[in-house]
């Protein structure tokens, strides 16, 4: 217990240390009809040390010296200084953005991200679609929508400010209850993912060994049972695993010894993936023409907004997309003339017949 407290405190302090250096970042993509994108990044930091402030390795999105950078600061009533860095760059195509993701040296460099753009000609309108995607972390996880209903899902993906507003608003009781429900269900989801991913990784590592298939099938069949064991013994998990009790429970006496290495390795992989150190940020998109669809939220300046958090891409790719349209004026004119021509012909015929 003492060791656990110490671990938790150390972890907390480390997180504080780490997060002091990470700026609050908002990325805005201004998408143009030709597929080029003007990317603007705004970072805010309270870090006093200029060397650590806005260090490339602390920044959540790829940025380098080729960007146009402007720095400023603000001082609030309490006398606290906030440093703001604004960076801007025009990318001629989506491929350039994807290249920067591949060569990223920032704090999220280990995460696979990419962007996409396409346009479709639909005669009267030209439709554009832009998306940014973060690939999933786990291979054998369950989608969160299997655990949450629609209202809970919406809450789950909401920006923090919106959650705060709702929980302090007139329907605060409802939203607090919703928040608790989402928390409880996502805990279950995480536990299930942990077990499922471990089983999946273990089966990969143990492939080829005798009776492997039987073991894997049995593990899968008992997945829910293992989740319950974890729930029940969450405070002693560490020691239970170390002592091999959990493993014996999962695999049986004989196999626990036989597959200990693979089991430990699988757990290591799982915790590495699940506990990936992703630094959150916010993403915004501004589309050309009139917006017709998105899975994002709309903020006060009518920009589309997505929070980007590791939860969102734990078991499924997280895609932030927006669609818009621009009318094809010439198509409208040509169609108008064509219809007028045919209509006139029909009228002429009616007159002549009459």
């Amino acid at each position, binding site marked *: 217990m003492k060791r656990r407290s110490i671990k938790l405190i150390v972890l907390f302090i480390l997180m504080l240390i780490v997060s002091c250096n990470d700026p609050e970042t908002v990325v805005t993509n201004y998408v143009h009809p030709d597929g080029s994108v003007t990317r603007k990044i705004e970072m805010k930091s309270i870090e006093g040390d200029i060397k650590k402030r806005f260090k490339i390795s602390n920044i959540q999105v790829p940025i380098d010296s080729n960007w146009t950078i402007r720095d400023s600061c603000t001082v609030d009533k309490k006398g606290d200084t906030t440093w703001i860095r604004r960076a801007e760059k025009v990318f001629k195509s989506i491929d350039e953005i994807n290249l920067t993701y591949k060569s990223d040296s920032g704090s999220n460099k280990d995460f696979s991200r990419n962007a996409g753009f396409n346009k479709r000609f*639909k005669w009267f309108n030209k439709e554009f679609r832009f998306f940014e995607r973060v690939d999933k972390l786990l291979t054998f996880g369950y989608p969160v929508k299997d655990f949450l209903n629609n209202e809970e899902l919406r809450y789950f993906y909401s920006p*923090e*400010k919106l959650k705060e507003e709702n929980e302090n608003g007139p329907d605060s009781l409802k939203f607090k209850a919703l928040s608790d429900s989402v928390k409880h269900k996502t805990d279950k989801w995480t536990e299930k993912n942990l077990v499922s991913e471990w089983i999946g990784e273990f089966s990969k590592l143990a492939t080829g060994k005798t009776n492997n298939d039987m073991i894997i099938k049995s593990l899968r069949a008992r997945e829910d049972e293992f989740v319950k064991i974890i729930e029940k013994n*969450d405070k002693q998990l560490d020691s239970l695993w170390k002592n091999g009790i959990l493993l014996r429970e999962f695999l049986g006496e004989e196999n626990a010894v036989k597959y200990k290495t693979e089991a430990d390795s699988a757990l290591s992989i799982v915790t590495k993936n699940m506990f990936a150190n992703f630094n959150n940020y916010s993403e915004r998109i501004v589309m050309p023409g009139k*917006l017709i*669809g*998105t899975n994002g939220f*709309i*903020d006060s300046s009518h920009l589309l907004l997505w929070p980007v958090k590791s939860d969102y891409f734990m078991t499924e790719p997280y895609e932030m997309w927006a669609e818009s349209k621009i009318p094809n004026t010439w198509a409208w004119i040509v169609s108008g003339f064509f219809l007028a021509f045919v209509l006139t012909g029909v009228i002429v015929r009616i007159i002549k017949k009459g």
Partner: protein
Amino acid sequence: MEPGNEKYNKVLDLLRKSKPDLDSTDDIKREVIKRIERVNHSRLSLSDLVDFLFGWVYIQWVRRSLITASIALVLVFIYQQSVILKRIDYLSRQTIVTERENGSAPADEVEKMFMVYRNSGRRFPTKNITISEKQMKELIESVNELQLKYKDLENLIQEDPELKKMIEKKLIENNRTKNNL
């Protein structure tokens, strides 16, 4: 006028009997036909143009194809626009956030990470430091002590409004000096 006005009647009689003489109608005929043909010709040109542009209306398959194409175009337009309008209407019911969102890590995310960490029984995977238990103990004790002292100090300041004002003023001045403002 009195009916018995003899002079008047005579004059009228003279005029009545003297009908204006149209020497020949041939000139008139010629001129009239000429004028009519001129008018027809200009009318014919217009008629020719109309026939040229809209001659297709007399060819059944062309007429039907063009009408079908027009109807199809109108239907496509209506369908496209209604789909777009529906999507825009759905969008307008999307949630609006009043403040700009920042990217800080929320408390529940930290909690989740703790839970996973607890379940895994492993250390922080990417940023590891090694520290002895004794050093850890000392660190914890000093943090606790600092926390208690800070709380006491805070209470003292809160209780004395003048002291509070003075300290706030000093803090602002210090920060200004630091930032060279």
